[in-house]
């Protein structure tokens, strides 16, 4: 009977909040020490960064209540003890960050183009959109509309591309680069896998060459060498020259990604299509490419993220994208010394776009894994 009286302790909780904390944060001594140390560091860091970015920061007015028009009026420059970030520089220069030096009278055209871009992307990103087919027609004609809207023509006054800047240039470079590189990449990928030795060799050489050199050398190529290659009288716009370089660069990477997708298609698909008497193009367009592109969408999004980040390189050849406008603002004596605010803002804008794209690619990967069974497992 004595044994019965001995009460056993209940098992240590492994569920609920306490259980979760115990397993994930305080599993053993070292683990608990690490957790406490990390919490201490965060306790030091988070209040400081929140204070700098929000609580003691100037947004439009300094602590005296004056509207800030140059860096001398920032709270932290008036009184170093009393002030954090000076976001007023972003507020004052917001127009340039978003539109560059686009004339103010015509800026509605950029706004319409931004809105149309969102509309054009919608059917590409969301497959279950009602009436997706009609939205897709719009997506196909959008580049033409955007060209006339932004550049001028068809009754719109012309706005030369050296007045474009900021987010506008970043988006134009990113979107055009990706959109043009996609078909070229498909052709290169098919070419590299072609049975015709000359074509396959040429495509391979092109792809490996582009992938072996840095983008900056291609941008220099577009800027200094391309004008030498063209006959007299053809004067290429600076933005177009950069776009040529960016597109060449991106199409080589796109080609490799799509080639990966092509390699994943089981040979039975080719054989079945051929046995139905399909020609090479018919087989690729109707059978092979739809499947190959579908499985290579996540890596396509990933290389697109890479390109989007790489568009910042154009500042080296003198095109003012978002980062270029930021650097230009810093060179202005009115806003000297506000580098942290400006770089923080530019980073944040890029982060929002690229992080959004990477989340989207993860979502696609999950959907593809559950949606179709490629017969791999």
């Amino acid at each position, binding site marked *: 009977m004595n044994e019965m009286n001995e009460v056993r302790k209940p098992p240590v909780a492994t569920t609920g909040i306490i259980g979760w904390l115990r397993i994930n*944060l305080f599993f053993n001594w070292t683990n608990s020490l690490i957790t406490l140390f990390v919490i201490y560091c965060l306790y030091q860091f988070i209040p400081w960064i929140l204070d700098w970015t929000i609580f003691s920061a100037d947004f439009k007015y300094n602590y005296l209540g004056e509207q800030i028009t140059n860096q001398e009026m920032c709270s932290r420059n008036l009184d170093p003890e009393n002030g954090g970030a000076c976001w007023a520089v972003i507020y004052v220069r917001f127009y340039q960050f978003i539109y560059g030096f686009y004339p103010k009278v015509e800026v509605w055209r950029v706004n319409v183009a931004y809105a149309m871009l969102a509309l054009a992307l919608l059917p590409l990103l969301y497959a279950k959109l009602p009436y997706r087919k009609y939205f897709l027609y719009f997506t196909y004609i959008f580049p033409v509309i955007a060209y006339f809207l932004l550049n001028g023509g068809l009754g719109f006054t012309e706005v030369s591309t050296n007045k474009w800047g900021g987010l506008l240039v970043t988006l134009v470079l990113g979107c055009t680069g990706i959109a043009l590189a996609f078909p070229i990449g498909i052709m290169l990928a098919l070419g590299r896998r072609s049975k015709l030795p000359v074509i396959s060799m040429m495509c391979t050489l092109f792809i490996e060459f582009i*992938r072996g050199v840095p983008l900056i050398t291609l941008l220099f*190529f577009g800027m200094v060498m391309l*004008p030498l290659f063209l006959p*007299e009288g053809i004067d290429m716009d600076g933005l177009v020259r950069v776009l040529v370089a960016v597109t060449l660069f991106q199409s080589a990477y796109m080609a490799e990604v799509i080639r990966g997708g092509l390699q994943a298609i089981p040979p039975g698909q080719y054989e079945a299509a051929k046995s139905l008497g399909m020609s090479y193009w018919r087989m690729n367009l109707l059978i092979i490419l739809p499947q190959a592109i579908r499985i290579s969408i996540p890596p396509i999004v990933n290389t697109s993220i890479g390109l989007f980040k790489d568009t910042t390189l154009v500042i080296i050849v003198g095109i003012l994208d978002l980062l270029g406008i930021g650097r230009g603002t810093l060179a202005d004596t009115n806003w000297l010394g506000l*580098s*942290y605010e400006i*770089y923080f803002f530019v980073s944040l804008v*890029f982060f929002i776009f690229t*992080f959004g794209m990477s989340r989207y690619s993860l979502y696609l990967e999950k959907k593809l894994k559950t949606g179709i069974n490629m017969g791999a497992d």
Partner: protein
Amino acid sequence: MRSNLGFFSDEKFRSIFFQTLVVGLFALGLLFVISTTSYNLEKRNIATGWSFLQNPAGFDISFSPFIEFKSTDTHLKVYFVGVLNTLLVSVTGCIAATILGFILGIIRLSSNWLLSRLVYVYVEFSRNVPLLLQIILWYSILIQLPRVKQSLQFLDVFYISNRGLYSPRPIFESGFSYVSIAIVLALISSFLINRWAKKRQDNTGQQFPVFSSSIGLIFIIPLILFFILGSPLSFEHPELKGFNFKGGLVIRPEFIAMFLALSIYTAAFISEIVRAGIMSVSKGQREASAAIGLKQTWIMRLIIIPQALRVIVPPLTSQYLNLTKNSSLGIAVGYADLVHGFGGISLNQTGQAIECMAIVMATYLSISLTISFFMNIYNRSIQFKEK
């Protein structure tokens, strides 16, 4: 139905026809480009040929740690300084990124939720912000450091200011070559001991203290030799003279910014590769090795890492290639690498864009090919071997 097309439906004929067509069009395009280019060059009075490489450069390079550079030196020397600077930042960046990436990748898998989340936040931030922006940001932090007169001091020998990091420069005296020979011999012999010990363990099961004997060989013997020879090594300390330090070893802020940005950015990608590699090793492997009584550290070193490396090495190679290519962004902060020195300033001075860009591109291509060649050899050595 196809018969009326005649010989055109013959696959062999079509293949030859299309390939000839492509080659013909390509040749025509090339001819057109060559003729317009030579016309344009002539009209703009731009010289051609490679003789410009022997002309004096006429500008200074602020950072050339390996070879002395004067403004009277040739453009060819600018090229070599550029290649060495590109290689310097690429190699140091790759090493730092690998170490940091492996540590972060393993921490990311740690059972401590807070720690792994912290690394996750770091990875997402540094992956999703353009590298160029990070380089410029690091540079702007470094040049906002105190001026030379108020430079920060560490251990009384290192000085950090907005002109860079000043540290003592080692001066090797005559006897030091013996010490370095001893170190090299020790490295070779510990490598041989390692191989012999492995063979003996495979055959007899007996273990040999490889680690401690290697430490003894590499550190203790050269150290004893060093003192016997009367410490043939002295340091030249940087001294503040006028507005700047004189003497010592200078590491310029451009290099530090490039090194920090490249290694931190690439480490984020490498940590994800390492994480995926370790996760690809099946759980059974860990359980089996625990069941036969291996220690935790041994499980990682002997079972998990060798298998994970097979998955890690191919994408790691492409990260090394990316880092090397990304080192070309040094131009944004004025780091005198290949693109900035030779492809930038030399090109502008001589105007010979085609020659300069061709050399720069060819150099990057050969660096890329060399890296993939060696990484492929390494990759083959760690893959599964069919016995």
